[in-house]
């Protein structure tokens, strides 16, 4: 998950970096002027600055190089801080999606979640590992196309790195998120119950037959102490008309995600707009 935390010091530093970019640009112009004609330039400055101007004229290329490099670094830093700010907004939107979707359901926050998955062509370490000797699974590669969880509602289950396969041959997608990605539609999936360590082999088989994962995959998750949700609702997320990822609601309540009274249209619009800036 992206660490969507933002602080006032980042705001402050970001502003200083913005100011420095302008200052560096102005200084480069001044240095170029001095370098071109140091004698003429000296007329516009007080007498005590003449040694400085002389030094600047001699070292002008070094100064220009320094200002260019530091200006570029400041821009990178500012852009990074701006992106971090956008991610905090996205985290707020995802939290709100979960609050709105699951208003009166029993259970803790992490029993009813909203997760934003991003499509990535490459994923070096997909988890869980599909085969002990080849983590990507039979016939798959790091660049097979993957859906990676980026932002999740609430405070718990933030460290989950469950990645789903979303390959070009869309018949072999993994998970509900993968199915949403492949179909490009709003999908609703309801299972009889959530899968926890007490689930029988029959429950696991039934669950896997409805959720685009294998029984072995479900067993692996259960063995890792996870509880798998009973209901899902997912929509594809687009940025400038291009598929970007998937927004997935999941709930341990078998009807929780299906009955979610959610204005998906508004949330999808806001997410698309924010993601344009990341």
């Amino acid at each position, binding site marked *: 998950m992206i660490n969507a935390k933002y602080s006032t010091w980042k705001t402050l530093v970001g502003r200083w970096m913005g100011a420095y970019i302008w200052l560096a640009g102005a200084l480069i112009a001044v240095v170029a002027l001095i370098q071109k004609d140091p004698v003429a330039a000296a007329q516009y400055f007080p007498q005590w600055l003449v040694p400085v101007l002389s030094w600047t004229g001699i070292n002008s290329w070094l100064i220009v190089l320094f200002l260019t490099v530091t200006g570029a670094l400041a821009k990178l830093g500012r852009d990074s801080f701006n992106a971090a700010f956008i991610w905090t907004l996205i985290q707020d939107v995802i939290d709100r999606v979960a609050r709105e979707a699951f208003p009166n359901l029993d259970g803790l926050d992490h029993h009813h979640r909203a997760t934003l998955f991003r499509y990535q062509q490459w994923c070096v370490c997909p988890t869980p590992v599909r085969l002990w000797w080849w983590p990507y699974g039979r016939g798959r590669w790091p660049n097979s196309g993957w859906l990676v969880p980026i932002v999740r509602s609430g405070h718990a289950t933030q460290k989950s790195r469950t990645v789903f396969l979303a390959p070009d041959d869309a018949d072999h997608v993994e998970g509900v998120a993968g*199915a949403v990605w*492949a*179909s490009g539609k709003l*999908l*609703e999936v309801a299972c009889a119950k959530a899968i926890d360590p007490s689930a029988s082999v029959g429950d696991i088989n039934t669950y896997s037959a409805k959720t685009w994962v294998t029984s072995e995959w479900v067993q692996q998750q259960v063995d890792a102490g996870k509880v798998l949700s009973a209901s899902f609702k997912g929509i*594809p997320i687009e940025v400038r008309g291009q598929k970007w990822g998937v927004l997935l609601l999941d709930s341990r309540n078998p009807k929780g995600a299906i009955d979610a009274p959610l204005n998906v249209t508004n949330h999808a619009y806001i997410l698309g707009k924010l993601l344009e800036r990341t």
Partner: protein
Amino acid sequence: MSTQNLVILNQKDLDVPAADLKVGGINVATKPSPYDVPEAVRTYDETDGSHVIEIKYMGPDEPLETVDLGGDVFVRTGRNSNRVYAFILGVKSGSPALNAVKRVLGLMLERDKFSRKDNYRLVGRVFSNANARLDDILAFTNVNKGKK
């Protein structure tokens, strides 16, 4: 260029029931992506006399391209999404606007190049006779004048 105000579409008219679809070998209840649902329509005349029926969506903007479908009829689609953003009916398009739109949508549903079939079906619903807002949409002075 004369312009009609946006006609906001009643989303209940466009709400389709969930349909079963086989995805990756599993039957699942699906609905069209919210990005495919038209939100508003407006019509206007270009200076060259062609009529434009423009469709608005909730989705953020994207680059557009115009495709010539023959008979002086053009369709403007999203370069990334393939959604239909406008029908452009040239002065030689001849047939009533509604027929031209239906013909264009029929072609788009048939051709593989136009991949966003859910979107075309939803736009078709906007222009279906059962839609109560149809008169509002096409009532604009020039779109249907002399073409009925």
